[in-house]
């Protein structure tokens, strides 16, 4: 029987980690992740999990300790935000290059300077090409569910890659929502026992991690690394099917909301997708065929599937909660543009940057964007391809 509770995003993810009971957790506190790891450390102190906590002096060290513990053969977790993820950057590539299935919730927060602790996707976008799988979560329920599924995905024998689970700082991490917890035994059975691959602690079968590879083989190694990444979408879908059996909740590579017959649509990650869906419904009630696509598996990005889901629309706006300076478009926009490029007939595509540093994303913002898309369809003309919304200019 599912337990219905009202909890914060941080509390829910900490609960999932408790139910999974990993071997090692090496973490360093940073707002808004702190409260998640504090709760988990409480579970360790109270003997509710058998996890060994390693207290470290920085995030560079926490990821280093995770890499060591994972290579040794353990099921390993950490969590971070913002500057913490930025400080891990060097080690992120080592975790993925060594094929270590470390699981890391990232509570999305803006990057400094100027210093800001609020919700923003700049942190995870910086780790987008680090070889980690990324799952994004609209709300507390999805953050909890994605955390549980992340272990099965990352630890799958065809994959063996680290996974980041994204949830919006404060908007989700510190807000209480109604969610359903799955029974401990169901979560444990679903995730299963950890199977170590070439563990360092298996001293009868000594192995080396992180050797030097010069130009003669480095490129072959990197090419081979693309193979497990290519298999991720199928595994994500298989795991989602099994997850539905224990939870009743369906997950895909992305959520397509009222998209089948849509003429205009939004593409948007995480919590702002929920707010947008309410506005999509209002437009539908007015007879305007609006829809929404919310990426879930953001790395590897399912280009073909996303392109197929969007190609029939007339105009699409991609909303990014992270900017790419230097005259470029936001990161999600670039991926959506690449998804649609192969099609001769494709929608008009515009980009809006919203919600930086925790700026509120309101229903009226979604409505303005949808009105603009309807206008583009009517006139066949795009006035501005990239624009900032909800900002004083």
């Amino acid at each position, binding site marked *: 029987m599912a337990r219905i509770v009202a909890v914060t995003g941080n509390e829910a993810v900490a609960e999932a980690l408790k139910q999974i009971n990993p071997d090692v957790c090496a973490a360093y506190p940073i707002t808004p992740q702190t409260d998640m790891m504090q709760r988990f450390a409480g579970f360790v102190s109270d003997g509710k999990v058998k996890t060994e906590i390693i207290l470290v002096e920085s995030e560079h060290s926490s990821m280093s300790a995770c890499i060591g513990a994972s290579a040794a053969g353990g099921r390993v977790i950490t969590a971070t935000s913002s500057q913490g993820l930025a400080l891990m950057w060097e080690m992120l590539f080592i975790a993925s290059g060594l094929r270590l299935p470390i699981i890391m919730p990232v509570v999305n927060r803006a990057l400094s300077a100027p210093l800001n602790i*609020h919700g923003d996707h700049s942190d995870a976008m910086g780790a987008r090409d680090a070889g980690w799988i990324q799952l994004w979560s609209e709300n507390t329920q999805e953050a909890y569910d994605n955390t549980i599924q992340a272990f099965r995905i990352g630890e799958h024998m065809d994959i063996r890659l680290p996974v980041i689970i994204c949830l919006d700082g404060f*908007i*989700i991490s510190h*807000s209480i929502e*109604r969610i359903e917890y799955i029974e401990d035994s169901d979560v444990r059975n679903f995730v299963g026992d950890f199977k170590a691959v070439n563990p360092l602690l298996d001293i009868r079968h000594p192995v080396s991690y992180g050797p030097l590879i010069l130009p003669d083989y480095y490129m072959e190694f990197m090419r081979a690394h693309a193979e497990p990444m290519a298999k991720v979408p199928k595994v994500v879908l298989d795991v989602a099917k099994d997850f539905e059996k224990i939870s009743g909740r369906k997950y895909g590579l992305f959520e397509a909301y009222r998209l089948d017959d849509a003429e205009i649509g939004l593409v948007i990650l995480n*919590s702002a997708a929920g707010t947008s869906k309410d506005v999509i419904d209002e437009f539908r009630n007015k007879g305007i065929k609006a829809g929404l696509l919310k990426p879930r598996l953001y790395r590897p990005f399912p280009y073909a599937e996303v392109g197929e889901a969007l190609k029939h629309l007339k105009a699409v706006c991609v909303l990014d909660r992270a900017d790419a300076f230097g005259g470029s478009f936001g990161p999600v926009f670039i991926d959506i543009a690449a998804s649609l490029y192969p099609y001769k007939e494709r929608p008009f595509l515009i980009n809006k940057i919203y919600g930086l540093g925790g700026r*509120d994303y309101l229903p009226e913002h979604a409505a303005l964007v949808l009105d603009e898309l309807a206008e583009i369809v009517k006139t066949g003309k795009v006035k501005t391809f990239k624009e900032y919304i909800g900002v004083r200019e």
Partner: protein
Amino acid sequence: MAENVEVRWHGRGGQGTVTAAKVFADACLSGGRYVQAFPEYGPERSGAPLRAYNRVSSKEIRLHCPVLKPNIVVVADPTLLDALDVTEGTPDNAVFIINSSLEPKVIREKLKARPSQKVFTVDATKIAVECFGRAMPNSPLVGALSKISGLISLDAILDDVKKSFSKKFSQKVIDGNLEAAKRGYGEVREG
């Protein structure tokens, strides 16, 4: 009261306003409802004005933004009435619950509430001081909100006050808060 309620709390840091929003959300879970409770995060300083929000609905709540048109506004600190406009964004049928020792009529005039809006007062600070010796108005206000919103019974809210406070406080403090919530429920008056 409708099955889709949005509450805005106005308080000052340290008055337990955020806790009150949490307790109310938790109590509203019963009956299969969906709930949200979240503060507006800023620099968290004791005494600084803050807002917190609740959404309660029979349907899944997908909005993840501040409540802009609250059905119910709860003011935990009467001095805030001089500092900010607590009626901002309120619809014609909005309800105000103000912690004040003044007559509801006086508060109604001060708020310039529209005739269709309802104004209630409860002397939450006095109740709190009498029940557990501290000027923490949150428990009486949660009691008053339960009654006015009609969403939950007094017993349900008392259960949740007990659950929420038992993690941190002694039996004496819990009993005081239960009494305070009961009195808030009983003593809230319309003007």
